[in-house]
């Protein structure tokens, strides 16, 4: 029987990982839900978010609050970049064959990551945890870094804000309508093009924010984009592409399975996650909380 404090610590680390994944996967899921494009370049937006946050920290210096300005600035920069990419490139993808879309977004990811290499080179970059959240505290015998706790609280806050916007606001109604029937919405006089750009920018913002917030916990290196996109993809497949709470649930499951998986299959915990994804694909191909595609 494992020590309860260990079980607690382990579930918290699973939760932290889950909330990061949620930040990234929610953008992926949103773009797919509304624009019907599986954006493989989303992982690269996440990586660029981390790099921009690093760059902003270099310019701003260490002072208090600087990290938050850097993180927000990075997320906004990536949102702008996302807006540009949507306007100039993605526009031509809608309604095209899925294979074509996939190849295009994959290529875009490769190009953007090479651009990142031109700016920041191949050396690993590192951002410190923000002052005020550098410590840790003990609870039930487990050590919990303050920053991890912040991330654990941020995840549900973003999910709720998201839910509120989608379900309770006028913009949210348009977004949901666009996901269901783009033509009819356009025929009714809504500027669907602007709506798509807005959705894409929001998704890119979340991806960039994920990257910026992850930078105090992980090294910022070339290649971090391809790692995260695979994880985010597993999350949305488990939870259901296009479903907000499905993505949230998928992220929670992913985090816990990975955390506790290492107790049962020490060298194959990643296998447990993929096995779960395969099982979901067989039993509910549209994911746990997703809707079957028409």
């Amino acid at each position: 029987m494992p020590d309860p404090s260990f079980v607690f610590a382990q579930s918290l680390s699973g939760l932290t990982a889950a909330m990061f994944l949620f930040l990234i996967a929610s953008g992926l899921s949103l773009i797919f839900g509304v624009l019907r494009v599986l954006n493989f370049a989303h992982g690269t937006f996440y990586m660029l978010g981390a790099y921009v946050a690093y760059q902003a920290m270099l310019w701003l210096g260490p002072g208090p609050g600087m990290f938050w300005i850097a993180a927000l600035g990075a997320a906004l920069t990536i949102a702008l970049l996302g807006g540009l990419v949507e306007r100039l490139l993605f526009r031509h993808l809608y309604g095209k064959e899925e294979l074509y879309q996939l190849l295009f977004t994959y290529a875009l990811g490769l190009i953007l990551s090479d651009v990142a290499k031109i700016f920041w080179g191949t050396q690993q970059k590192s951002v410190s945890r923000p002052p005020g959240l550098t410590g840790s505290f003990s609870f039930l015998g487990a050590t919990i870094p303050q920053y991890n706790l912040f991330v654990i609280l941020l995840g549900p806050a973003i999910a709720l804000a998201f839910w509120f916007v989608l379900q309770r606001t006028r913009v949210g109604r348009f977004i949901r309508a666009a996901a269901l029937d783009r033509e009819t919405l356009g025929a009714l006089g809504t500027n669907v093009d602007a709506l798509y750009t807005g959705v894409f920018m929001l998704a890119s913002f979340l991806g960039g924010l994920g990257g910026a917030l992850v930078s105090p916990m992980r090294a910022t290196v070339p290649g971090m984009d391809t790692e995260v996109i695979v994880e985010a993809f597993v999350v949305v497949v488990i939870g259901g592409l296009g479903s907000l709470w499905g993505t949230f649930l998928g992220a929670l499951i992913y985090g816990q399975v990975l955390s506790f998986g290492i107790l049962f299959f020490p060298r194959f915990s990643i296998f447990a996650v993929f096995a779960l994804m395969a099982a979901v694909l067989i039993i509910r191909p549209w994911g746990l909380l997703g809707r079957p595609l028409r």
Partner: protein
Amino acid sequence: MLHVFTLLLAALLTCPLVAEAQKPIKVGMPMPLSGPPALFGDPATKGAQMFVDEINAKGGVLGRKLELLTRDSKADANEAVRVARELILKENVDFLVGTLTSAEGPAVSVVAKENKIVFIAPIPKTDQLTAADKLHPYVFRVAATTTMEGRSAAEIVAKWPVTNVATMSFDYAYGQDVTRAFVDHLKKIKPSVQIVDQQWPKLGEQDYNPFINAQMAKKPEAIFSSIWGGFFVTYSKQAKALGMFDTIKYNFIGVGEAATPETTKSMGADYPVGIWGNSYDAFYWGETPAHRDYTTRLSKYLKDEYPSSWAIQGYIGMQFLAEAIKKAGSADSDKVAKALLGLTVETPVGPLTIREKDHQANRGQLYGKTVKDAKYPFAIMKPVTYVDPSRFMD
């Protein structure tokens, strides 16, 4: 097949029959220049290029200039093989110096054997490369091996006042091999030490929290890690946040170059100062005039006040090749291969010798406890010791 044949024919026809002496000696260098491993591959090619520029300025080797042709191997065995073949068939390179990962090295070794071309591996550590069943007359290594690295770490940990140790390594060839070498050697020289836990995250893991929690639940007194490069930055940041280094009182050794100036520099104040680590080189070592001189030149060449610790591997690889060509008096691979056997070269880290029996150089690494030093804005190893592996290479 026909394709290869036409290429060969084209190569033969374009080969000038005269002016052999003026023709440069071409050296092909497959090295990862993209993706995370480019972090080491890129400076290694620059170290090699610096050597080439310097020797050409002095008139080259046997009156011929050296020419370095680098290709991106993408840290992938298939790609490394492809570019190695391209370098041999299309570019007519005389020698190969290169590869980084333990997958690329052995794959390119096969190409070298087929084409009877000398191949010097400056970075791959897997024992496989020069194992008895894989060894052939044309493959040589100037990198440390997993056996040498694991045993060096065991020699250090054996001196610590701890009764048990845990290990943290990636679950693939390098991680497994270096950890096995460490554990076996430690058990041999200090049988009283227990191995209480072994964690095997997948290569490139981004979230170490579950592994660290699981490991700390076993209450280890010391930890051996082979999490390398940028991955060490991620691992140690998360371990530090969880208070791991304090709990084990900094009885931690990170092989896989966890104490390179690149890593400590990029982490700044976040580096877990007080742990032990290793590195192929450190600009602040300066033990010998040769090393100080090399560092000054490299610093100028790279325009970097704190030059890379990986450049030296490309430099030493080229150094061995040039010395062997001189000794052989020819750029013929068969003669150069013979010349490399037992060859001793004065490198910036001191004299290194390629052993006749396994074509392996006694390349040790720098080890030390990391400390803060007022002279630098990042942690350095102090005292830093060059661990010569000659005693425990077999």
